[in-house]
């Protein structure tokens, strides 16, 4: 318990986080990229075609991880928002700042690949049903957080973004259950914690590799982004200047 408390206090120290995280970021990014290449390659070339959709179902190996990550990323932002408002931890604010553009990119990726997949499968690029619309709302929530940060002065931006991040989390269960609550063209969840996958292993194993690798990649780039936020906010301090000098020489 004592060690946990020390860790908690240390997380409040951006410098400590920067020095520890630098070692983790590159490893996670490289592992993530290798895993993504492996998972996507497996899904594209080796997995059998779907009996109904043929080969267009291979878009799933990209679409599903992008969608899962866009949701996880927002939940992380919501949690960070709560930490910021309750404990005033600066690091939480930096996590929100670094995560928002990454989550927005994943969300856009999920929407675009979903539209492309929808065309041969549903016969349309887009439907205004519960799933697609709630994911579009998620993209706008990301844009909202990014815009708030740019529009407001730094002192108020953190709290405003935290509040929007927390409130926006409401959208996540709506996305999750939209396929069960409303009639929709979208198929239900691919993975469920409570039931066996509805696909054979040769189809879902590459997806599992892809999803886990996306998580590793996300963790790596998030740490990189948080490191950048730390540098920006701690610029002109002695330790950042020393770091700049050691890099320049």
């Amino acid at each position, binding site marked *: 318990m004592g060690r946990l408390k020390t860790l908690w206090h240390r997380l409040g120290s951006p410098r400590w986080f920067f020095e520890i995280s630098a070692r983790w970021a590159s490893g996670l*990014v490289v592992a993530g990229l290798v895993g993504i290449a492996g998972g996507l390659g497996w899904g594209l070339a080796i997995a059998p075609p779907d009996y109904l959709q043929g080969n267009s179902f291979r878009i799933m190996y990209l679409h599903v991880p992008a969608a899962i990550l866009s949701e996880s990323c927002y939940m992380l932002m919501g949690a960070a928002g709560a930490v910021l408002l309750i404990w005033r931890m600066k690091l939480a604010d930096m996590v929100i700042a670094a995560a928002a553009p990454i989550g927005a*990119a994943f969300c856009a990726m999920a929407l675009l690949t979903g539209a492309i997949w929808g065309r041969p499968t549903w016969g349309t690029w887009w439907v205004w049903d519960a799933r697609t619309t709630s994911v579009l709302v998620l993209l706008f929530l990301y844009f909202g957080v990014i815009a708030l940060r740019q529009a407001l002065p730094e002192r108020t931006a953190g709290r405003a973004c935290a509040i929007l991040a927390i409130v926006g989390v409401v959208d996540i269960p709506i996305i999750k259950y939209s396929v069960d609550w409303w009639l929709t063209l979208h198929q239900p969840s691919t993975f469920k914690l409570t039931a066996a996958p509805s696909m054979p292993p040769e189809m879902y194993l590459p997806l599992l590799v892809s999803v886990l690798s996306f998580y590793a990649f996300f963790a790596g780039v998030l740490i990189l982004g948080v490191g950048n936020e730390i*540098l920006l906010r701690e*610029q002109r301090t002695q330790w950042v200047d020393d770091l700049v000098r050691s890099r320049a020489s």
Partner: protein
Amino acid sequence: MSFDSWHDFLYMGGHYAFVWSAYGIGVAGIAFILIRPLHARRRFFAEQAQRLRRRSPTANGEYDASGTA
């Protein structure tokens, strides 16, 4: 392997336009997500190094008298 030849693989049973454009978007998205923070970090260090160079190299960590730093 699910395909017999490179042609079959690229043709994707006629769904090539959908599959490959989706994967193009995916690769572009991943590249964007990765390059953005790397680029920001490089720019930060370049700017800060330039700021430090503008300071008088002889003064022991003090700003130069011109007040430009």
